[in-house]
């Protein structure tokens, strides 16, 4: 088991290297001169040149790449231009709200989408199925900010039940924490619920069509047993796969949600840094999220072994 984990970890390293390289290349090769962008519109040629030297942008691409990689391996994501703090510190400070938001959104998604998907599959082609699928397409198509503002309009402005924005850490009390997190979580989860519901339904339908299910039913096993014991377990793999793949969408959603609800998380950090032209922070946070994605997918790969005994690496 240990060697399996190590093997998978080792396999992830090249991917992370590639991700880091891709980020480096794409940002370095993008049109536009980072030094000029950082210096701003009013800067003189000398200050631009100075910035260029400071950031090592005047050296060859190869040298820059080596320096970048060396720093990365040591966990150094660079320093913010605005605040001079290390990027890692900035990210760590903002991790709490983002993590809360994302974790609750994922939990909400699983708690809502899986039952909905099961229901839709069970009542295949029935009214419930069509209704749920229609709802899913609708939820999937609504941009995050439209959903957010509709929810805010109803719950904060008209009914005045929930605060319009902001974040209250757990330390401030469970009530406040929950109240502030409720709307953002629902907003973020909506697209996911749609996605996971569809995948659950499709995957379950696939499994329910298989021979062993027919056998189980012929044996006289109750429908509920068939669903939960046999079908759902087998349907789990595609669902888990999609969760991994959809992580990037989750991250994008986090960025928008945090901006709308004014939550001081990592997503907002990216937006603020881009607007402030704080280029190292932008780069560092992108890397952070990408590595997170690779890591989560790694965990999912390993989860496969648990979920499907047929899979051996």
């Amino acid at each position, binding site marked *: 088991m240990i060697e399996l984990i190590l093997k998978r970890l080792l396999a992830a390293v090249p991917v992370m290297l590639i991700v880091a390289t*891709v980020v480096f290349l794409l940002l370095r090769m993008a*049109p*536009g001169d980072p030094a000029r962008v950082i210096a701003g519109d009013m800067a003189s040629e000398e200050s631009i040149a100075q910035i260029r030297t400071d950031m090592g942008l005047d050296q060859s691409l190869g040298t820059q790449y080596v320096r970048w990689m060396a720093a990365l391996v040591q966990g150094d994501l660079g320093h913010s231009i605005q605040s001079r703090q290390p990027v890692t510190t900035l990210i760590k400070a903002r991790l709490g709200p983002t993590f809360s938001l994302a974790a609750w959104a994922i939990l909400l998604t699983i708690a809502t989408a899986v039952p909905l998907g099961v229901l839709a599959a069970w009542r295949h082609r029935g009214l419930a199925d069509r209704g749920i699928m229609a709802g899913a397409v609708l939820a999937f*198509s609504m941009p995050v900010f439209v959903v957010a503002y509709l929810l805010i*309009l109803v719950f904060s402005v008209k009914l005045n039940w929930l605060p319009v924005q902001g974040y209250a850490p757990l330390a401030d009390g469970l009530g406040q924490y929950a109240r502030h997190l409720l709307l953002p979580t629902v907003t973020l989860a909506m697209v996911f619920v749609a996605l996971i519901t569809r995948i659950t339904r499709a995957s379950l339908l696939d499994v329910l069509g298989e021979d062993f299910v027919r056998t189980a039913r012929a044996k006289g096993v109750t429908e509920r047993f068939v669903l939960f014991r046999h079908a759902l377990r087998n349907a789990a793999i595609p669902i888990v796969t*999609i969760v991994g793949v959809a992580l990037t969408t989750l991250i994008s959603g986090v960025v*928008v949600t945090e901006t709308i609800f004014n939550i001081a998380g990592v997503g907002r950090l990216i*937006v603020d840094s881009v607007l402030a032209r704080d280029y190292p922070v*932008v780069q560092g946070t992108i890397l952070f999220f990408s590595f997170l994605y690779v890591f989560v997918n790694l965990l999912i790969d390993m989860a496969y072994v648990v979920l499907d005994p047929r899979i051996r690496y």
Partner: protein
Amino acid sequence: MPTSSASLLPAAPPPSRWRQAASALIHDPVMLGSLLLLLLLVALTVGAPLLAFHDPATLTPRARLQGSSELYWLGTDSLGRDLLSRVLYGGRLSITLAALVSAIAIVAGLAIGLAAGYVRRLDAPVMRLMDGIMAIPGLLLAVALVALGGANIVTMVIAISIPEIPRVARLVRSVVLSVREEPYVEASLGSGTPALKVLWRHILPSTINPLVVQATFVCAAAILTEAVLGFLGLGFPPEIPSLGSIIAEGRPFFQRAPWIVLAPGVFLALLILAVNMFGDALRDRLDPRLSRKTKG
């Protein structure tokens, strides 16, 4: 012996793609409905210069923040500009951009996927590269590229296309991998047909169906990404009406004048919904197998 003479006739040729498409449209209400909605929205936006009664850029500060009225059908925004014309022009921008992005992503993804699928030695490195790009959240990549390259149409199109390319490439590659083993490809190669011709005549046609479906999803994603970029203030300059930036401008006035946020929002949602529904219906029709595995 009574033999049906009809069985001696050669079978009717399969209907052409156009006939298939027409029959699909007529028999599938969802596909027809979403296509009609889409065409309606496109017609509205394309006809924006004719339909919009006011110039979207004219400021009339006296008339700011008004609700729906005879003069301004959707009301005015914070600077007294007609919301209806701004939304229509914004929609025009979204659709144009989405079409461009879709075209680029499909062409690039097709080229990469064909290369990776056909040339064995290219497969592993190219796919690793695609995996690397896919690991970066699309929005963030677009944000970073636009931040560096400036908010002009070229940069925006490139920035939004790049995150979509890997998915298309993977799709094409998997099709190529399976078609490559078919007997007719082997036969063609064996009789000396040059590789490029084989690709063009035998392999490419199999990619068309999944590509068309994927194109619709890329379109929807592009519309959404452009809107989000505009919303975050990272898209086109504020004078150019874009659905996202109109919503962003309406944020501070949300309690007083919610229509500034809601009108473009609803338009955007309808547009994305129409594209998604059409893509779904198309996928169910063109390749029911695909609807289980890939999700756009």
